[in-house]
């Protein structure tokens, strides 16, 4: 009986220790997860007064875009494009594009237009003079509809390829485009 009660006491002591472990921990501050929840395409007319932002947003943070704005542009015009990437889960909201720009050597934006009569070129360059693409020039021709797929590659191995630059995809979003 003596042994029983001493083992019970030992157990109790252990349960208390464990209770300490359980309550003494804070919940969600151990990791640095950074996600892109919003992509903004900011288009400013060159030689015209066009100035509009189009957004793709992941409102619930599940990793899929909940809404993508259709891009509507006048025909026969040219635009200066600047992309912005945000993490809305942070307070204050974090502008990830600044960081991407700071690491331009390790990033590449690739633009792929389908069906719409539009050309995207003049990608801005990184520190080594290779394409980077956070900024670009968009030129529209005839009235048409289609889409533009914007892909951000991290650590690409061939920055001159638009089909297989290597590395990993950080963002890929396809905006519907109407030229009228």
């Amino acid at each position: 009986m003596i042994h029983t009660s001493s083992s019970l006491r030992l157990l109790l002591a252990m349960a208390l220790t464990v209770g300490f472990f359980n309550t003494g921990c804070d919940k969600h501050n151990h990791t640095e997860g950074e996600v892109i929840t919003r992509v903004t395409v900011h288009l400013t007319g060159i030689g015209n007064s066009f100035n509009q932002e189009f957004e793709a947003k992941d409102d619930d943070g599940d990793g899929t875009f909940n809404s993508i704005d259709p891009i509507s542009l006048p025909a026969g015009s040219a635009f200066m494009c600047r992309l912005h990437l945000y993490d809305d889960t942070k307070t204050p909201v974090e502008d990830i594009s600044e960081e991407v720009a700071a690491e331009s050597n390790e990033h590449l934006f690739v633009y792929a237009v389908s069906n719409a009569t539009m050309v995207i070129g003049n990608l801005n360059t990184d520190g080594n003079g290779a394409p980077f693409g956070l900024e670009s020039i968009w030129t529209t021709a005839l009235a048409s509809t289609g889409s533009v797929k914007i892909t951000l590659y991290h650590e690409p191995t061939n920055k001159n390829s638009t089909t297989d630059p290597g590395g990993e995809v950080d963002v890929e979003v396809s905006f519907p485009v109407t030229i009228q």
Partner: protein
Amino acid sequence: MLKSKAAIAGFCSLCCLGLSAQDCHFALRGHVTEAETNEVLAYASVLVRETGKIVSTDENGWFAIPNLCEKTSYTVEIRHIECAHFTQIVQLTENTAMEFRLLHDAVLNEVVIREKALPPPPTQAAETVAQSDLEAGKGVHLGETLKKLPGVNLLSSGATVAKPVIQGLHGNRIAIVSDGVTLQSQQWGNDHAPEIDPYASETIRVVKGADGVRYGVGAMAGAVVLEPAPLRKESGRGGWATLNGFSNGRGLAMAGSIDWRLHHNEAWAFRLQGTYKRNGNLRAPDYWLGNTGTREFDFTGMAAWEREKTQHTLSISQFNQAYGVLRASHVGNLTDLRFAIASDTPRNNLNYFSYDIERPRQEVQHNTLKYKGEIRLNEVWKWVTQYNFQYNRRQEFDRGRGSVIEGDRPQVSFRLWSNTLDAGLEHRPIRHWQGAVGVQLLQQLNYVSRGGYIPDYLSFGGSVWAIERWRRFPHPWEFEAGIRYDYRWSHATTSGNGNNNLDEVVQFGNVSGTIGAIYRILPELVLRGNTGFAWRPPHVNELFARGVHHGAGAYEQGNPDLQTEKAWNTNFSLDWQSKHGHAGLSLFRNAVQDFIYLNQPRDSVVLTVRGPFPAYFHQQADAVLQGMDLNVSLRTLGRVYVEARASTLFALRKTNDSDGKNRDWLPLMPGDRYQYGLRWLIQDHSAPTFIRLLATTAIRQWRIPAEGLTKAAPETFTVLGLEAAHSFRWGKRRIEAGLNVQNLGNRRYREYLDLFRFYADMPGVNVALRVKAVF
């Protein structure tokens, strides 16, 4: 010697008292080992002086003496060529199996025998890892020690991360039980290896078949049971140290253990054990596998206070591992994955040798604290209490932009606390029935960081169980029956990831049962049959997962309406063992109602922020897994043995597809596998001297679902392995040395159950050398 005379006197008075009611159909079965080295003693003679019966131990150190009387003291004498003779007094209350440990006592120049009752063998098909395979595999990981067993496969992520697969099932469907503690960690993840240091174990056994009654919910396909060496029984010190070197990855593994029992207070015994492992990038035949280095440090401490009727054991252990994840396996979206599959050589590979472990990498820590108390209440009943606390921390470090990797913080972390309390009453045989009843209480708390893909949860569980075994040697039959009820309550919550504001309570309860029999057709031939019912509640990831699972490169979505999985597992096994060799055949059928699996509907893709990902959905359907395992080792000319092992599995699920098919194969099931070779046994004892050449042929898995990316199964391959071991005495120490060459021909191959098969080949030739000193 004086002691034994006193006991014989006791025996005389006893037999006079209880002569009329005496039953003389008992048997003493025993296993004889050398206490210092744990070597089994084959061909030792065992004499029961009172009856004049004499038998000899078999190759594995076992013997059996039938027709002994109950409640009687017998003097057992054991003789072995290398030693003098030893005596021990044994009293039989019922049929028992006992472990006899012989110890050379330097002071008294005589040998002492310690004996303890052994637990009965399982009625399910079971395999024990051969000592030589165990020693060779310990320096790598748990999976490596198991992979030669028929019916056991590895679900791996490259060569460094491997989960055991028993007859097609893994993860939460098997139990991993180390020193009586069921491992509680993030085993739902296919890329999460069990946090087990094989150096802390002396024996590893795999139970194939449902064993929910013994091991609780989840043991639907079996269990991997690891037992540490028993603590030192004699006062003084002992231990071992080992060093392993590996050519591939330029790896090193060191381990050592020291045991002691106090001289002035023999009730106290202690053990300290530690392991350190390190390797750099592994090499496939044609290229380095960039970022496949690992680092591991583990330790165990045990303290026991043992008296005749009471035992208290306290043990702590910690497992720490950091490992790199193959750089080439880190792909972005589906486009990247298609490029990776199309490419013959790994993309983005770091094609050089390095010990550095870079991102992506994972770090795991597992802590276990265990207390076990055993109190013998009387001749028949024993009260056993066990409490264990486990804390598992898993951190995943992803690649990313400068600010993401700043401060070297992980992107995802999982922390799991588990408390388990077991209480049971065990009884020695009562009218030939021996068994136990017990209760278990479990509490778990899981915290996941943002983006962690599974929710937080708090769980409570409880169970009651009873198991009984009838045996009456030399009666050829042995029976077992057991029943258990488990209940689980879980509260899942999350904020910030794909399951915004999840707040759900789920509860599950069900019965498990087992009925088994063993029939000894001949002393060398044993037939076992078992049918068992086991179940498993759906895990939180199957219920609530939602998002991209980066370890798997897939979008996964849970289903909150999932029901429990119920398995009815039946298996038969026939084992033959003689001096000419041994053979084992087992047949099994596991019918699983509401089997939960990841389904990928044809070309289903989810568009994520990072582009398209293949989409998988947790679904359930009735499934049947059936197959056969075979294991043969036959002595031919001289001391050359021919060895062969084969396993095959057919795993189908019911479907109600529109195209009229009503059955389809389950994904990620092992294909047919054959191992065959020659073993030249040069010197035969428990640590034998031998050379073995073994080939492994894995047939291309064709039993795969028609849909999904899983359809790419690698080609059939054959790899060769060469092993040799030798043990000798060096002064008072015993030295064991071993050589192990894997993938002898440096063949290029990929495994279907390797999650990295899309990206890179398996490692090429590896020469491992090991030396172990026992003192």
